[in-house]
């Protein structure tokens, strides 16, 4: 079998220093009541928080200084995201730009795009969304039909994207669109563009999720004009760029810490003298978390060394999101509680309510469990 390597994640001193800086920052935020951890997670959008995180130097830390970054190792960023997640910090405004849009622009974007966007992302002022899925193209991403056609002034885009998180409140999307024929492997003819949401030709329709929140949108392009230098990478290179970033997306701690605050609240609610069932199940969940933490940290080190542990990354997301799904199911069995969307007297009931209603999305977003298992099977040599 392909032997999975989860070597000791030796963090450099600057990563350990960053851990203490973030903790101090987050403690001050909590003390100032800037967010309530029990109701918060990385998928809460809070511009004020993102601006303060940017000002404190926690966004775009791996990017070169000339673009507003700090030229730090990716392990420094790993530690920052870990700590943000552990604290339940409301990171969603800057999350996508910091995690994937910014790195893509840095690596494949035009000089103008880099100068225009990266410093603002670092300051926590400029937010991004992901324009991949379409009404007829979900797990089968190669079926993208939104099309860009070359004109003198740039490219004209027509079509629509769906499940676009935060499209109504971000400044830009990076959209994957068709610019040519798919070819025999179906992966050709796709190109990425930076979409400025303030320009004419792009409209947003809200899609409310089952928890009542507005995060998703449908985005419609009608003769939207995008300049040549807002293309990310070369024409037709979209597929390899999108799939090349997946190990970063899938192995991160956001794939098993989405509902970490429920774990904290569960332990607090159970208290220092658990009964046997509570002790066993909490111990079991902690064991799962500890293993995931190690897997994720080891992969961060491999990524920092320039390796692409794609199978391991898919494993983290598959095992990690399964853990995220199980946590609320177990929590409700261990504590006699009726989950609520707004219980002024019971923090635990509220946390459980919030997590329970978001749990179905954990094993969908960023690649469904079924897609991941196919990737793992390929890594195992079965495909």
């Amino acid at each position, binding site marked *: 079998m392909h032997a999975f390597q989860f070597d000791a994640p030796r963090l450099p001193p600057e990563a350990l220093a960053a851990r203490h800086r973030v903790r101090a920052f987050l403690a001050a935020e909590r003390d100032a009541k800037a967010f309530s951890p029990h109701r918060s997670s990385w998928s809460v959008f809070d511009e004020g928080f993102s601006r303060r995180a940017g000002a404190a130097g926690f966004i775009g830390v791996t990017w070169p200084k000339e673009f507003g970054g700090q030229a730090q190792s990716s392990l420094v960023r790993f530690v920052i995201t870990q700590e943000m997640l552990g604290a339940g910090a409301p990171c969603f405004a800057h999350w996508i730009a910091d995690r994937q849009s910014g790195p893509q622009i840095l690596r494949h974007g035009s000089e103008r795009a880099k100068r225009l966007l990266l410093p603002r992302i670092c300051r926590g002022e400029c937010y991004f969304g992901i324009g991949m899925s379409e009404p007829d193209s979900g797990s089968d991403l190669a079926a993208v039909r939104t099309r860009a056609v070359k004109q003198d002034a740039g490219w004209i885009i027509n079509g629509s994207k769906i499940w676009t998180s935060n499209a109504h409140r971000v400044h830009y999307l990076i959209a994957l669109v068709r610019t040519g024929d798919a070819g025999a492997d179906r992966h050709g003819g796709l190109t990425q563009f930076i979409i400025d949401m303030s320009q004419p030709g792009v409209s947003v329709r809200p899609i409310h999720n089952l928890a009542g929140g507005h995060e998703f949108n449908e985005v419609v392009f009608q003769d939207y004009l995008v300049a040549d230098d807002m293309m990310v990478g070369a024409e037709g290179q979209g597929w390899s760029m999108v799939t090349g970033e997946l190990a970063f997306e899938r192995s991160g701690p956001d794939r098993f810490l989405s509902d970490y605050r429920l774990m904290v609240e569960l332990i607090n609610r159970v208290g220092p*003298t*658990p009964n046997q069932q509570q002790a066993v199940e909490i111990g079991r969940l902690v064991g799962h978390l500890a293993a995931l933490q190690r897997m994720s940290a080891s992969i961060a080190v491999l990524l920092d060394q320039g390796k692409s542990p794609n199978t391991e990354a898919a494993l983290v997301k598959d095992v990690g999101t399964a853990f995220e799904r199980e946590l609320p199911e177990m929590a409700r069995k261990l504590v006699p509680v009726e989950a609520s969307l707004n219980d002024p007297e019971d923090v635990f009931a509220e946390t459980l309510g919030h997590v329970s209603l978001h749990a179905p999305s954990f094993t969908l977003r960023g690649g469904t469990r079924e897609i991941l298992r*196919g990737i793992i099977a390929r890594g195992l040599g079965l495909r």
Partner: protein
Amino acid sequence: MSANAMPAHTEAELSAIVLEQADRLFRGEVTKERMAEADRGTWPSGIWMAVQQAGLPLALTAEQHGGVGLPPADALHLIRRAGYHTLPVPLAESMIAAALWAEASGEAVAGTLSLAPVGATEVISIERGSGSYTLRGTAHRVPWATQVDNLLICARDAEGSAWLALLPRAGLPEAKRRTNLANEPRETITLDGVIVREAAVRAAPASCAGGFLLFGAAIRAQQMVGAMERCLDYALAYAMEREQFGRPIGRFQAVQHMLADAAGQYAAAAASAEVAGEAYGTDDFAFATAVAKARVGEATGKVAEVCHQVHGAMGFTQEHPLHFATRRLWSWRDEFGHETFWQERIGRMVCSAGGEALWPMLVGK
């Protein structure tokens, strides 16, 4: 394979060489015929001779005490490889017992060794006489008790202090044959006023304050990770070789997803065992070992189930070697505390510390 023979190598290189040579040795020595023989209760002396000649039982024993002195994390990898090859001799027990005895006495001890007692609650008492000590008590399910040269006993005196006693097996009363599901010996030892000379008793190292439970859990966790890897190797090979409906069964999505699920369980188990190996000899060892035994133990059920399902009826026979690995998994997961035992221990530790204290336990202070 002594460390002295290879002065030009760094510690990491030495470890890599030892592991590679051990892997090759296990592969060559552990044949299907020898496994079947050991399964019938015959002591596989040929395998042990080879393991001993290679110096492996002293891999974890410090160099200054005459051992190989591998870093503990690497020595525990060696135990993992032994698990992969379902090595039918007590190498893991011997390695740990030899290292603990050397730590307590400054002496290396050769030959096969085992540890007693193994349970969380069993106690062997020790009493000092003039020029000797007396041991009393019963230890159940002692690994390889009837087949080792010496037993390392962790005993308690009237004040509750822990002592180690090195007891030759030869002088003890015959025990009734009892085996685990893999036919590995697990017998009851009754010490009914056994006299031990002074030189064979030492104050136990601080790490043995809780008995041998943690050490036993640590070695079983590594062995299980190795045996799970073997099961998956068998299953992946079989899935691509066995054809039904005109194609290898591994091409069917249902089979792929089952194996992907098992691989995830295995990966999480391997990661937690890795942490425990690195924590050997540090303050984190107790927590990391509890997590490893719990997480690995939980994974074994799923991995064994899936690998048997993939093998169909063939895996349910003695003709296919899968059972050598799965019967060990089903035994080892219950030895030195099953997963529920360790989960409860972790749960109590975490709950008494409170919710906010969990984070630094997971990522560091």
